[in-house]
């Protein structure tokens, strides 16, 4: 097991020395006060989320005071690896919606792509500005050793969590200014500016101004990431719109303002493909902007991410990302994939069924840490339940070994204890490819747990990248 702070039982890693001293000086009273202050702050600014459950009570994600720290050189490696991956995923999307070279080269079987619901037929033959389909990619990583990272999954549609990354830093700076005097922490507060620049650099061909009008399209206040939508649009100074605020007339998309219609050039959408355009996707959808896809395909507006970008983060496609990197970029992958058995192959399925108690089984279309089996941690009856599910619907599942996620020191009832963490940095792809100087660290607050999802007791931490 790898501990982010301790090299051995008695030896602190250099870059955690300051934090260790700070922790030793902090009394239980101060910890309690600061925890309460953070909670009040998060409630006041309204950074809450609602889970899928019927009780619509707003919850806040537990925030751990101890930051997770990366050295400059550790981060440089991650940065290269994530950008490499983001480039390959965009190249893949451009390819499968156009020439399909990777299929012709027999690297990825065509059924795997064309039969997927997330493959968007209406995108065939169309290239968005700069050939960028997915301008904001969140890559979920775990660390298992000093120099060993694995990518758990890619998020190419509308990755969320960046508001937590930014707000966690804000509250840390507010509560512990001294920490930022003694540590050289790379700032992250320019992320919204970079995001806006990215969106503006992706203006559609018919846009003839140097300052394209961008909007953020939200499904509305009931969405669990709604805070993030309003936070980002506020930080970028762009309108946050719902689909009823937008309409198509002629070759362009407009928003309804008190001055009358105003043309929109770039839509940063935080809604699913299905709800974009009832004329093109889901005819039963009452939300959506009729005709927006026609405007999009004729260069009147850009939609970020592109419809159909979701195919790139499909769990079945994930297996091929290292191949994509070699195929499109001619490079060796910097970040590793987790070994994955796809249960629709007979050999893989048999292996998985024989080793269920050692493996993690996930639904191909699942998310949020729901509907998965963590073999080594599960009861016999649950394992048997998954055995039945796998036999009935092998296509619906993949399996992976259980990774030994790194531990990060975490305050549990005022004591420092090790808890497992993951990391989601955010990669922007526009005129430039760039990585946020930090990311969202999620922590499994329960002892021994591997599940970091906020819906299942996960918390968050501030994530530091030390300057060179």
């Amino acid at each position, binding site marked *: 097991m790898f501990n982010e702070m301790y090299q051995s039982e008695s030896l602190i890693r250099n870059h955690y020395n300051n934090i260790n001293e700070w922790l030793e000086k902090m009394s239980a009273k101060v910890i309690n006060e600061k925890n309460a202050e953070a909670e009040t702050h998060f*409630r*006041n*600014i*309204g950074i809450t989320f609602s889970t899928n459950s019927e009780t619509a009570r707003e919850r806040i994600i537990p925030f751990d005071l101890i930051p997770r720290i990366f050295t400059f050189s550790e981060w440089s490696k991650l940065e290269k690896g994530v950008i490499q991956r983001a480039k390959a995923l965009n190249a893949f999307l451009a390819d499968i919606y156009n020439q399909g070279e990777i299929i012709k080269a027999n690297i990825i079987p065509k059924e795997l792509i064309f039969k997927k619901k997330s493959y968007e037929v209406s995108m065939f033959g169309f290239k968005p500005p700069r050939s960028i389909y997915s301008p904001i990619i969140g890559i979920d990583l775990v660390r298992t050793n000093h120099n060993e990272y694995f990518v758990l999954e890619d998020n190419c549609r509308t990755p969320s969590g960046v508001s937590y990354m930014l707000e966690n830093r804000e509250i840390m700076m507010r509560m512990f200014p001294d920490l930022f005097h003694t540590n050289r922490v790379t700032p992250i507060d320019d992320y919204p500016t970079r995001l806006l620049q990215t969106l503006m650099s992706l203006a559609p061909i018919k846009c003839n101004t140097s300052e394209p009008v961008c909007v953020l399209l939200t499904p509305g*206040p009931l969405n669990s990431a*709604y805070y993030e939508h*309003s936070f980002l*649009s*506020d930080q970028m100074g762009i*309108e*946050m*719109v*719902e689909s*009823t*605020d937008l309409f198509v007339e002629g070759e362009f998309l407009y*928003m*309804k*303002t*008190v*001055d*009358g219609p105003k043309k929109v050039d770039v839509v940063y959408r935080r809604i699913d493909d299905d709800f974009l355009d009832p004329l093109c996707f889901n005819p039963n959808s009452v939300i959506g902007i009729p005709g927006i896809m026609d405007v999009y395909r004729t260069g009147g507006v850009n939609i970020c991410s592109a419809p159909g970008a979701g195919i790139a983060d499909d769990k079945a496609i994930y297996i091929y990302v290292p191949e994509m990197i070699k195929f499109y970029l001619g490079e060796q992958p910097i970040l590793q994939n987790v070994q994955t058995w796809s249960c629709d192959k007979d050999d893989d399925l048999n292996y998985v069924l024989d080793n269920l108690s050692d493996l993690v089984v996930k639904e191909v279309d699942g998310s949020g840490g729901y509907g998965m089996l963590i073999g080594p941690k599960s009861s016999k009856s649950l394992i048997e339940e998954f055995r039945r599910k796998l036999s009935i619907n092998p296509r619906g599942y993949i399996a992976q070994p259980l990774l030994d996620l790194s531990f990060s020191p975490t305050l549990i009832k005022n004591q420092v204890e090790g808890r497992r963490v993951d990391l989601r940095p955010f990669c922007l792809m526009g005129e430039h490819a760039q990585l946020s100087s930090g990311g969202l660290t999620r922590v499994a607050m329960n002892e021994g747990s591997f599940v970091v999802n906020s819906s299942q007791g996960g918390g968050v931490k501030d994530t530091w990248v030390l300057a060179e």
Partner: protein
Amino acid sequence: MLSRTAEYLYWISRYMERAETNARLLDVGYRMSLFPNPNGYNNEWESVLAAAGAIQGYKNKYNIIEQKKVEDYLFFDEDNPSSVYNCILNARSNALVVRTSFTPESWLAINKTYQEIQKLKNNNFNASDLPNLTEWTIEQVNLFRGSLSSLLRNDGYNFLYLGLFVERADNSARLLDVKYFVLLPKPQYIGGNIDNMQWSILLRSLSSFRAFRWAYDGDVTSTKIADFLVLNSDCPRSLSFCIQNIVKHLKNLTCSPEKVNKIYNNLKDLNIKIQEEKIESIVDFGLHEFVTQFINKISSVDSDIQREFFN
């Protein structure tokens, strides 16, 4: 500015204003309940409900009118769309949508109010807590209004104030109308205890009790009170003050001058009339008729604004 944003801003201040009106009404009812209870005004809670426009909803839920129930219905009840709780809830969910269009201070003022009323609602309150609740509400609304001073003086600001004054105009006029029936048969001179009580209810519920004394010398007459609440443009809750401010914020809008003109034309006659008219001729014409016309006009201005700007 997005039409929807304008609409939400408009409604945020309507809800906050309404929360305050309800709190004031409850305060008046509470005060009345402390006085001896001879014939005539023992049904004060009913007129509180009537003034709040909540009497039908209340009667659908309860058979008898009693203090604890009225308090609960007007303050916390989620079934009452205009309860203080719902007003704050609605203001807050609107604010969530448009927080990008006003300052962090305004958001905090509303969101903290929301956090606190959630806690208050979960505590079992008893009747003697009411003054604290109403005082708290008025304080919170003042905090919100104060936070608006840091806003850019753009259209968003004007829509917030349009909402505030449309709501206030409507609330003031309805209060006048409710009390009008009680007072109509009485002679001009107000002397009896009951009369004093009734007028003081009206003035207190419009937060103008002391202001009236400062504004007028001599005897309290119904004409003076009517003048104060209808025509006196020094009084921040008078019909005249509300109308003038609606006109002011309407004309300050920089968007769509044609739309502004269209709405103004609908309002112009009333605005001129209310500034030139004498209270005596309004009373001769019929205060009730005048107030009814006023309410209808405000409601048509409200629909003008919604139609022209929000659709």
